[in-house]
């Protein structure tokens, strides 16, 4: 995929950082404000997709990159599943046990395990969407060779 003009490239590089940070904010504040792992993860993936669209696939040097993001996705899901079944392992025999203290509602450190799930799922969703997009881009390059 070819990139676009210099102005577009520069502006998207700036914008991507902003979108990325906003995505992180959405993920970490998922239990307080609208949003959460899914919306934030999709935003983070969107930042990368924007970068690739504007700068062309040469910019990120795609070479089997989808394997990396796919492994990232698996790792995040394993973390989420282990966190979910930690109640089973620890002996309370409850799947999805919210074992951390609930904290003071409204503060960032509240909601027990919910923020952790949001973070893991944020990583997972970002990696999944990026995997799908990269698979498409890599396929196009392979076929045009």
């Amino acid at each position, binding site marked *: 995929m070819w990139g676009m003009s210099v102005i577009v490239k520069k502006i998207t590089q700036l914008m991507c950082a902003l979108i990325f940070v906003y995505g992180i904010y959405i993920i970490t504040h998922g239990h307080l404000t609208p949003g959460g792992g*899914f919306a934030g993860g999709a935003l983070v993936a969107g930042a990368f997709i924007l970068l690739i669209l504007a700068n062309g696939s040469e910019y990120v040097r795609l070479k089997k990159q989808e394997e990396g993001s796919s492994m990232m996705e698996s790792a995040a899901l394993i973390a989420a599943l282990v966190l979910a079944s930690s109640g089973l392992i620890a002996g309370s025999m409850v799947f999805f046990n919210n074992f951390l203290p609930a904290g003071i509602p409204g503060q960032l450190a509240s909601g027990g395990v919910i923020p952790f799930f949001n973070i893991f799922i944020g990583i997972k969703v970002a990696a999944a969407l990026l995997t799908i997009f990269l698979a*498409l881009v890599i396929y196009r390059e392979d076929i045009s060779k």
Partner: protein
Amino acid sequence: MTLFIMCFLLFLTGIYGVLTRRNLIKVVISLTIMEFSLFLMLAMIGYISGGEAPILAGTIIPAAPVVDPLPQAMVLTAIVIALATNAMLLTIAIRLYKKYGTFDIREINELKG
């Protein structure tokens, strides 16, 4: 009730598209429209007149009645599932296009019956 009937009309429009269109991409679009109508119906079922959004302002006890949070969680799940199915369908459509050079279902007929 009018709103629900309009929602159902949107659903039927999607079904009509799936059954009559002969273009791979158009079929995907029709399925997406059906999904949209179901999301909207679910969100409308959960709405309570005068209810607030289910995000409390720093307290545990809701100050005003809130709308039903369960349909919203269901819609969120359904949106992600719809995204997954759409991605799969589009992937197959691209592969088929590269093999046949067309999006026409009638020309993609290696399998019969």
